[in-house]
């Protein structure tokens, strides 16, 4: 069970070389395409049911029933929603900057998928085990900002523009404590490779050694994902839908897809950095990965459906006056701690 996917992949590649007589380079290329397809399917299927899960869980937190009409327990609700969205007309506002408007909805999805290249889905199940895996994740995830700015600017609508600007301001500032909180983990591991970080947690999870960093990571991650209580970029009551105001149909669905895809990626990163990665007793690692990711997603949703949205100035104050000094202090304490630990070891 543990090596189910690895063995299947290796077997398929072996069969393509010996059975079909392809050269090993082509077989390798085809395997990469298959991996991308599998990751895409994983993301899309999860997003489909995350929307359902969010609606259902939010209903439970508010003592409602949630969707329960379409299919058994409402399970087909989101599937039919997607079919509806696909069948809708593709509306581009007349005053919009057409190229930027159209490009934004595509660009927003690209980093959302690229993030999955470095995520450890299981033991030895990282698509590309980069030696700068964490850095790659941070770099790619920050480019999502550009798509929101493009959408806000290209829509030629005041609400879109305000939403886009807010999302840029929020994402750029919260990136700093996010990165600093990860730095604590990297200092402990001495490597930015995902597999090294996961391996370093075989004895004790980093959430135990770096609880403050995890807290900062969680808060900044919530802000990066623009989820409540930090959902100012799309605050419905004031900005209609922020940068996505003018989008409808499939283009809007792609924004939605990217949002939930980022949620999975952020949860997966939290699992890899703080919760011991895809490792656990009795069950195969990829099952533990899914369980841990869904626990993280549950917590993200729990927070979203508990707290009200905070004000924009409080948002900035939380970041610059609380999270940033705290994360710097955490780095200092971690550094001192490592030195003291090294003393005692010698």
């Amino acid at each position, binding site marked *: 069970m543990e090596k189910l996917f690895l063995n299947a992949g290796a077997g398929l590649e072996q069969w393509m070389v010996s059975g079909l007589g392809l050269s090993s380079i082509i077989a390798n290329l085809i395997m990469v395409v298959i991996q991308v397809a599998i990751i895409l399917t994983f993301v899309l299927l999860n997003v489909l049911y995350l929307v359902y899960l969010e609606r259902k869980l939010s209903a*439970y*937190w*508010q003592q*409602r*029933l949630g969707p329960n009409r379409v299919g058994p327990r409402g399970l087909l609700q989101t599937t039919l929603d997607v079919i509806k969205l696909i069948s809708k007309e593709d509306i581009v506002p007349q005053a919009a900057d057409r190229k930027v408007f159209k490009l934004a909805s595509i660009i927003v999805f690209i980093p959302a998928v690229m993030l999955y290249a470095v995520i450890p889905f299981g033991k030895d199940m990282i698509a590309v085990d980069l030696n700068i895996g964490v850095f790659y994740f941070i770099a790619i995830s920050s480019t999502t900002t550009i798509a929101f700015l493009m959408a806000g600017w290209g829509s030629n609508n005041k609400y879109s523009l305000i939403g886009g600007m807010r999302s840029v301001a929020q994402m750029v500032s919260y990136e700093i404590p996010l990165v600093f909180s990860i730095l604590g983990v990297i200092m402990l591991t001495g490597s930015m490779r995902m597999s090294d970080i996961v391996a370093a947690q075989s004895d004790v999870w980093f959430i135990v050694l770096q609880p403050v960093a995890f807290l900062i990571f969680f808060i900044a991650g919530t802000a990066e994902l623009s989820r409540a209580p930090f959902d100012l970029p799309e605050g419905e009551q004031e900005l209609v839908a922020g940068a996505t105001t003018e989008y409808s149909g499939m283009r809007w669905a792609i924004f939605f897809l990217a949002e939930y895809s980022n949620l999975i990626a952020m949860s997966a990163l939290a699992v890899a950095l703080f919760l011991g990665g895809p490792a656990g007793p009795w069950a195969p690692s990829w099952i533990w990965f899914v369980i841990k990711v869904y626990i993280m997603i549950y917590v993200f949703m729990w*927070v979203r459906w*508990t*707290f009200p949205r905070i004000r924009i100035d409080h948002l900035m104050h939380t970041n610059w006056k609380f999270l940033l000094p705290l994360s710097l202090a955490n780095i200092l304490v971690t550094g001192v701690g490592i030195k003291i630990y090294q003393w005692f070891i010698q």
Partner: protein
Amino acid sequence: MYGKGLVKGLGITFKHFFGKAITEQYPEEMPNLSNNFHGSFALDDEKCIACGICAKTCPNNVIEIASSKGEDKKRRLDDYNMDIGLCLFCGLCVESCPTDAINFTQDFELACYARKDTFLNLFKRTEGQDSQPSEVTEGGN
């Protein structure tokens, strides 16, 4: 302590998460109504003495009563009509009835397609009517 409220809030939602949903799935599940619920009306024509107080007390002139004097010189009910479309369900008729003849029911599904369907006749015609002309009592004094 800083953040105590946040933890408390999370605790409340977590408790609610396992609580029973308060949603009523209305057409399949009928609501549990109180005994005092102001729904439609029911008339007990055995009890009704056709005094017309209900019609007089109604602020919107909803009730229209027809009554006649029988051979025993007793007033009796010939017809009891309500224009529910005008009714504001204040319950003054129910309160003012001296014999407790008119009462609310639990039936609240009063929506209908045409204006004429909003009229409600509460009088069940019994045998042995005599042909004396009825005298109509309405509100609007």
